[in-house]
C-alpha cells in the first residue's frame, strides 16, 4: 500500500490545524512543533500527541528533532509568512535534500519561499478565490468539485504509477475503457516519453502507456483500490 510519511508540521494556527487534520485523515504520522504553547494546547485538544516546543532560531534543536524522529517531510505552516520563510531557509541550510513544503498568502511571499528553496509552495488563497468564482458563475461545477474533493469522502483523486509488466504497459490509452470497465475516470497522465509534464487526457493524444508513467485518476475509493490490485496482480 501507500507509503506513510513522518511529517513535521510547524505551527498550529488556522492553516496548520486544517492541514494537520487532513494529513491525519490520510494516516500520516504528524508531529507538531511550535514556539507557542497556546497553539500546542489547541493541538492537544484536537487529539494530536507528538507535540514539541521549539525555538525556531535554535538550529541544534531543529536538527535533533529531524534526526531523532526520522522526519521525511517538513511543513512550514505558521500563519505568519515571515516565519515560514525563515524556517524554510534554516532547513534548507541544515538538510539539503529534506523536502520542505511551505504555505503563503501572497505572490510576493511565494517568490521568496521559492528563492529560499522550498520544494512546494502553496498559495492558500488561489484555490479559495477560484472556488468563489465557480460558486457564483458556475454553481453546478462548484457543486461537483466540492462533492468530489471535500464532501464525498468515498470519491478520491489518486496518482497511479504504471508498474513494469502490468496489463497497461505498452497499451494505447484510448484502447482501454477505464470508465466502463473499471468505473474510474482518467483525468490525465505524465507520459515519460513526452517529458515530465502532466498532460490532460482531453488533449486528445492517444498516449502509449509505458511502465513508469503516472495516471491521475478520480473515482470511488473501492474502484480505485480494485483497479490497483488488478494492476499489481498481473506483474
Amino acid at each position, binding site marked *: 500500500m501507500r507509503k506513510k510519511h513522518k511529517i513535521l508540521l510547524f505551527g498550529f494556527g488556522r492553516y496548520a490545524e486544517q492541514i494537520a487534520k487532513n494529513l491525519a485523515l490520510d494516516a500520516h504520522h504528524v508531529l507538531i512543533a511550535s514556539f507557542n504553547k497556546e497553539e500546542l494546547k489547541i493541538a492537544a485538544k484536537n487529539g494530536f500527541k507528538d507535540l514539541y516546543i521549539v525555538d525556531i532560531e535554535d538550529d541544534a534543536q531543529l536538527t535533533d528533532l529531524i534526526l531523532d524522529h526520522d522526519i521525511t517531510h517538513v511543513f512550514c505552516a505558521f500563519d505568519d509568512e515571515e516565519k515560514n520563510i525563515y524556517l524554510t531557509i534554516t532547513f534548507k541550510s541544515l538538510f539539503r535534500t529534506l523536502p520542505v513544503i511551505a504555505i503563503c498568502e501572497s505572490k510576493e511571499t511565494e517568490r521568496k519561499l521559492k528563492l529560499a528553496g522550498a520544494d512546494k509552495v502553496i498559495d492558500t488563497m488561489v484555490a479559495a478565490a477560484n472556488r468563489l468564482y465557480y460558486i457564483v458563475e458556475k454553481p453546478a461545477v462548484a457543486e*461537483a468539485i466540492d462533492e468530489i474533493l471535500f464532501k464525498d469522502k468515498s470519491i478520491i483523486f489518486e496518482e497511479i504509477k504504471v508498474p513494469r509488466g502490468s496489463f497497461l504497459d505498452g497499451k494505447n490509452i484510448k484502447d482501454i475503457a477505464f470508465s466502463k470497465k473499471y468505473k474510474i475516470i482518467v483525468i490525465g497522465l505524465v507520459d515519460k516519453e513526452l517529458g515530465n509534464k502532466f498532460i490532460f487526457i482531453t488533449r486528445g493524444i492517444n498516449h502509449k502507456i509505458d511502465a513508469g508513467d503516472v495516471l491521475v485518476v478520480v473515482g470511488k475509493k473501492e474502484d480505485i483500490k480494485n483497479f490497483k490490485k488488478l494492476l499489481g496482480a498481473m506483474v
Partner: protein
Amino acid sequence: MRFAQFLVDLAFLLDNSLRYQRVKRFFKNLLENDDYPYKKYFDYFMIFLILSSVVIIIEEVKTPISKWLYYYDVYFVTGVFIVEYLLRLWVYNDVHKIIILEYEESLFLERPFDTKRVLKEIVKKKLEYIFSPLAIIDLLAILPSYRELRILRIFVLFRVFKLLRYSQNITHFFQVLASKKIELFTLLMLVAFTILVSGISIYVFEEQHNPHINTLYDAFYWALVTISTVGYGDIAPVTHEGRTITMIIILVGVGLISFATSIIVSAFSEKLNEIRENRIVHMAKKLDNYYVICGFTHMAQLLAKRFQRERIDFLIIDNDANVVEKALAEGYLAICEDATQANAFRHINFNSVKAVMALTQTDMHNIYICLNVRSFSKECFVISNAVDNNSHKKLRLAGADYIISPYITAGFFAAKIIDEPIAIEAIKDILIARKNALCEQVEVIKGSFLEGKQIKDIDFDRYKLILLGIVKMEESLSKEKFHHKFIFNPDEEQRLEVGDILIVMGYSVSIANFKSQVVGSSLKHEKKA
C-alpha cells in the same frame, strides 16, 4: 372667503388625484432625476435644439436664412424652451401642499384660513426658483428669438450656457469652483481694489499727457490689461509717474495670477478623488449583472484577476485609500468606502448586483458587511469569507448565503500535495483554468440532441471531453440555489432529462464546440416544431 374655499378644494383634489401625481412625477424625473433612464434622451434632444439654434443665429449674422429655419428657431425651439421653463417652474415644488398645510394648521389652531399668507408663500417659493442662476439662464435663453431687438441676440450666449444643464462634466467643473467661493471672492476683491487704485492713479497722472487715456474707463481697461500680464500695448504710460505705477502693478499682477492659478488647482486636487469616485459610481450604475467585492484582500485580488479574464464586471469597495489606488491602477472599478457603513451602498442598485462578497480579513467586518447588505436587499446573494471556524454560524445569521474559508481548502490541498503532487497540480490547473483545461457545466436544453439520451449514446471521446458527472435538479428543491444532486461518473444507462447539468472537463475549445452543438441542435428542433 369663497376664493379660499376654492383654493382648498382644488388642493385636495390634486392631492387625491393619482393621475396628477403620476404626470408630475414623470416630468420631475425627466427634468431632474439623473438616474431616470429617459432623462438621457431628453437631454440629448435639448442639446440638439440648442446647438441647432445657435448655429442658425450665427449663420443669420451674415446671410439671410431660409424661412423654414427661421420658423423652426422662432417657434419650435423657443416653444420647447418656454414649455420646459414652465415645466421646471411647475415641478420645482408642490403648491397644493402649501395650501393643505396652511388649511390643516388653521383647523388645528381654530383660526380662519389665511389666503394672503398662502399666496405669499407660494409666490415666494416660485420666485426662489425664478431667481436661481440656472432658471435665469433658461429665461434669458428664450429671448434671442425676438428678432426686432438686435441687442437681444447677445443672449444667444445663454443658449450655450443652457448646455450646462445637460452636461455633467461642466456642472462638475462649476461645483469644484463653487467649493472655493470664499477664496475666489477674496481674489476678485483684490483684483477690483488693485484696478481701482492703479486705474485712478494713471488717470490722474496721465490724463493730460497721454493721448490714449481720455476717460476713467480707458484707465481701468489699461489697468486690467496690465495686471493680467496680457499687456496689449495699445495704451502705454508715458510719464515717469505712470511708468512707476506700471512697474508696481505688473509685480502685483504676477502675484495675483499665481494666486488664482493655485486656488483653482488646489480646488481640483481636493475634489479630484470625489469626482473620480462619482464617475466610478456612475459607471457602476450602468453595469448590469455585476459583483460587489468588499475588501481588496489577496483573495479578492485573485478573484478580480479571474473575473477580468472571464470578462465579468465587478466593483471593489475598500476603506483603505491606498488599496483602492492599487485596484484602480489594475484597471478595476473601485471606490473608497467603508462597506460596514450604510453609506457605502447608497448608490448601488441591488437589483443589478449578482452577488456581494465580503472578503475582508476579519470576521467582525464580514458580519457587519453581511448585515449591511441585508438591510438594503433581502434577495441579493451574499458570500462571506470566514476566518474562524466559529464564525460560520454567526455569518449565516447575519445573512450570508454561502461561506468560504480559505483555510479549509488550503488545508486540503496542502495535505494532499505530499502524496499526490501531480493530481493536486491537475486539480489546481482545472480550478484556475490554467493551460486552458476547464471544468464546465452544460445544461441539457429542451430539444437538444442530449435530451432523452443515455450516457453511452453520447460519444464524449469524439468531443475530446471527460464526463465527470451530472447534476440532477430535484423538482421540489430547484428554486434553492445549491440544492442539486450530484452523481459522480454516472452509469451507462443513466438517461438525461431536460434541466440536468453535465459536468464536463476538457479544453476550452472542445467545450465551446460541444456547447454550441447542444444549443444548435435545440434551435434546429425548435424550427422544425
